[in-house]
């Protein structure tokens, strides 16, 4: 069991370092409380945004925390790739530049798998291949609009 954990941990850690560097231009890694006996402790996300001292999740800003947590989620996904991904407003804490960086990464990954991303942010909508509009008029059912099956420019 420890063996299987170690193998998963090492792989996810390598993914995390690569993804965090791509999303935030800094260095990050996963740290076990007790490396010799992992089941005895927990796991910390340690990040070192460019030019800042190394810090734990707790002392980062809202946006830095969410970029670190996102990197961890993506690192888990890379360990067990799937044919499709669905994300629901994962970009809400990010500033414009970070939304763009995240959108670029998704666009890149979308060559190998399907990505369905719910977002209210303009840079994300603009980088997608197509947008599905959803609306609900007063008291009516949800309507799915503008299923624009052709590659499109931003409609927002």
């Amino acid at each position, binding site marked *: 069991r420890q063996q*299987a*954990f170690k*193998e*998963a*941990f090492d792989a*996810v850690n390598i993914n995390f370092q690569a993804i965090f560097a791509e999303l935030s231009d800094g260095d990050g890694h996963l740290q*076990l*409380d007790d490396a010799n006996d992992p*089941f005895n*402790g*927990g*796991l*910390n*996300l340690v990040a070192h945004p460019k030019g800042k001292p190394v810090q734990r*999740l707790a002392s980062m800003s809202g946006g830095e*925390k*969410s970029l670190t*947590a996102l990197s*961890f*989620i993506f690192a*888990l*996904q890379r*360990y*067990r*790739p*799937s*044919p*499709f*991904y*669905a*994300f*629901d*407003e*994962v970009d809400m*804490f990010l500033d414009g530049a970070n939304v763009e960086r995240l959108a670029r990464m*998704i*666009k890149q990954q*979308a*060559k190998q*798998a*399907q*990505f*369905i*991303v*719910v*977002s*209210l942010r303009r840079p994300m*909508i603009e*980088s*997608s*291949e*197509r*947008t*599905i*509009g*959803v*609306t*609900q008029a007063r008291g009516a*059912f*949800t309507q799915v609009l503008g299923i624009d099956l052709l590659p499109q420019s931003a409609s927002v």
Partner: protein
Amino acid sequence: MYIKRLELSNFKSFGGTTPVPLLPGFTVISGPNGSGKSNLIDALLFCLGLAGSKGMRAERLPDLVNHTQTSRSRSTVEASVTVTFDLVGMGGMGGGQQLETVNGNGNGNGKNAVSAVDTTLTVVPDPLPEGDTASSPFSLHASLEWSVTRKLRVTQQGTYTSNYYINGQPCTLTELHEELNRLRVYPEGYNVVLQGDVTRIISMNSRERREIIDELA
């Protein structure tokens, strides 16, 4: 492989039957607050059995049926979601030997459905070069599709039944998960990130975070 279509009937804020065609690659879903974006993601989780009612923001399963439907009707009401996958390109799934393992399973509980599924799933050929389609014995499967349906029926008294179907044939949740695993869709695989999951990961303690890796290992 990708999700080709979602079809929602009386599911949450969707009334009637709403088809949602999808394409491979990068699709964004956008729209005003409360318009039903997260409900679409919930529909996916519901159909593929990837979350319980709490994970779909409902107290109990019957709350998932469109309210207008439950308040108007005197008899049993029904909500259903169908997810259709396009399997083109799945040839690499290992061809014939898949048929062996599942059949062993399938016969065990006597459900025809599973082997029916298998025929579609396991012998999907790599897309043939143009013009050669006539010689392939499976060209009949032009659609190379695989669909999952889940139906929820709620009686007036509030009792309910929920059934899964693969390509129209009834199956159990365990059988469905086995097939999904084969398609590399894992319930704990984190491929569906819900609204608030990022915050949840941030506020977890370090032990809970470590347990995520335990599950994957």
